[in-house]
């Protein structure tokens, strides 16, 4: 029983790390319509920044300054924000597909750097011994993970509240306006490029924060942790949960991570060892089918975006119209 509980805690921590990343993507895609499929790249930057700043000293690569966790988190957020700024400048003025191509490219280049820049990242061996957010001696894994779960719940709650305040502020309304009709927003004196860049940088910084939390939770990072599959998982979470709704982003993370872990456990339990690779492939196909089905039959997700109407206007919004309100 305690094994079950311990596993549940472990599962929830991972799911909430995904929820952080998913909230970042929701700001970019759900509210601003920015098509970022380089999620794994920003996650990678955050994770490695934390590992380099906070990790133990090592002869083989720079970093390992053993800095405090707060400094590490700040460094992760800053690093991923800077990368997002560099990626965003040339691409956010162009057609949305270009951002997709550039971000996925950037993610694979970052993975290449992680693999080859040994002096910085430890190469294929990765970086290990990354300290946990909460230092201290614990008797069991469960006792060690429970405080982390509390931290994660607080982080997600704070992020959720902050993002909700942001998207309901005038700033958030401009984002939606740009998403719906760039020219109209521009004609009202809002610079679409500037707002897109802000949204992109903030969203990516949140993904970087997720990466840092991941690195400190697992205690080890290597280039293989940041495959494009990660991007795919986060996107599925957002689409299934409901993009344009922060509750949907968190819900999607929990649901899809549950489907993912359960199908993985099932595959491990049922398949003989020589078929495990195929089981992993089948798992991805399963998640892919979920994504496709959602896109085709319920594009708003489980809980879609609320229709934004002025408080003064007492309009009946039918589900049909709400679907149309989603369209970027």
């Amino acid at each position, binding site marked *: 029983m305690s094994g079950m509980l311990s596993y549940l805690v472990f599962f929830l921590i991972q799911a909430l790390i995904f929820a952080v990343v998913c909230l970042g993507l929701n700001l970019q895609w759900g509210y601003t319509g920015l098509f970022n499929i380089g999620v794994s790249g920003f996650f990678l930057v955050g994770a490695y920044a934390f590992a380099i700043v906070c990790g133990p000293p090592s002869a083989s690569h720079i970093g390992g300054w053993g800095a405090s966790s707060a400094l590490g988190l700040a460094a992760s957020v800053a690093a991923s924000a800077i990368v997002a700024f560099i990626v965003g400048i040339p691409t956010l003025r162009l057609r949305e*597909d270009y951002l997709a*191509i550039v971000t996925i490219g950037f993610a694979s280049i970052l993975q290449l750097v992680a693999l080859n820049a040994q002096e910085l990242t430890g190469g294929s061996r990765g970086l290990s011994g990354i300290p946990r957010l909460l230092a201290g001696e614990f008797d069991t894994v469960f006792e060690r993970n429970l405080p982390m779960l509390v931290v994660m719940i607080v982080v997600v709650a704070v992020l959720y509240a902050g993002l909700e305040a942001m998207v309901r502020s005038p700033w958030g309304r401009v984002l939606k306006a740009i998403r719906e009709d760039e020219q109209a927003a521009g004609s009202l004196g809002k610079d679409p490029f500037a707002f897109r860049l802000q949204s992109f940088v903030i969203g990516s910084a949140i993904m970087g924060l997720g990466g840092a939390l991941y690195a400190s939770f697992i205690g080890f990072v290597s280039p293989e942790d940041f495959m494009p599959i990660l991007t795919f998982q986060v996107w599925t979470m957002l689409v299934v949960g409901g993009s344009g709704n922060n509750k949907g982003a968190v819900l999607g993370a929990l649901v899809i991570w549950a489907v993912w872990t359960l199908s993985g456990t099932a595959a491990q339990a049922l398949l003989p060892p020589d078929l495990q690779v195929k089981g*992993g492939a089948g798992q991805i196909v399963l998640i892919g*089918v979920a994504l*496709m089905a959602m896109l085709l039959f319920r594009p708003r997700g489980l809980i879609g975006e609320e229709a934004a109407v002025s408080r003064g206007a007492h309009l009946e919004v039918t589900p049909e119209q709400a679907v149309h309100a989603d369209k970027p």
Partner: protein
Amino acid sequence: MGQYVADGIILGATLALGAIGLTLTYNILRFANFAHGEFLTFGAYFALVFAAWFAGGATLGPLTFGPGFLAAIVAAVLLTGGLALLLDALLFRQLRRSEFAVALVIASFGASLMLRNVIVFVWGSQPEYYSRNIAVAHEVLPGVRLSADEMFVIVLTAMLMVALHLFLQRTRLGKEMRAVSDNPSLASVTGIDVRRVIRWTWLIGAGLAAVAGVLFGLTVQISPEMGFNLILPMFAAAILGGVGSIYGAVLGGLVIGLAESLSVPLIGPAYKPAVAFALMFLILLVYPKGILGERS
């Protein structure tokens, strides 16, 4: 140096064939199809199956394969074209109707991952080769050694390019495709069956991708990741040449292939994949229309 140029042209030929389909779908269907790389992979694996069926017999001169392999390429092209049509019918056509434009890109990204894993599921993740025969390289120019297989890649690509050029300029269907690519609504008003044109776009794009996949498998190796690894250089080629321009895609493919190959003596092989990306980034920064592009 000459050897790097030759290697670059061979890689460039593969990229150009792949980029043509990418630029066609981008222009006619108006979305960046991330699943296009998997058409290369599927083409290569389909040919692998048929090559095993048609195996036996003597090899053709100095090549490492026999006439059966040519039949395998044709079969792979047809099957990959069918796969593209199937994907369109099940997924993309439905999403086009929903007017939710970017859903197409997300769906293609998801489809790409799924198709790649279908390959792993069916064929496993080990790299494969068409032939265990050793391709002997001969000195064709001073300092340039090419195997017969590599010459075959260059000749076949050149022949396909000429055929495509004639198709687009001379045939009715080719002209319709160019018209739809320029302006779908106007083309539709003038009585062109846009749906038929879209079908042929998929068939031609995926067919050329299948050939590209087979040629890459012939000169390098076949693996589930091959298409995904080539999708970025192919996008780079399409963007560099100007999205929508078929000749631009060919030119872009060659430039990217040469740049990747020539970068090896300068920065080493580890960052070779980054070269295509850097070029694309640069083009987007200073000249997003691309070399032969018309629209921004």
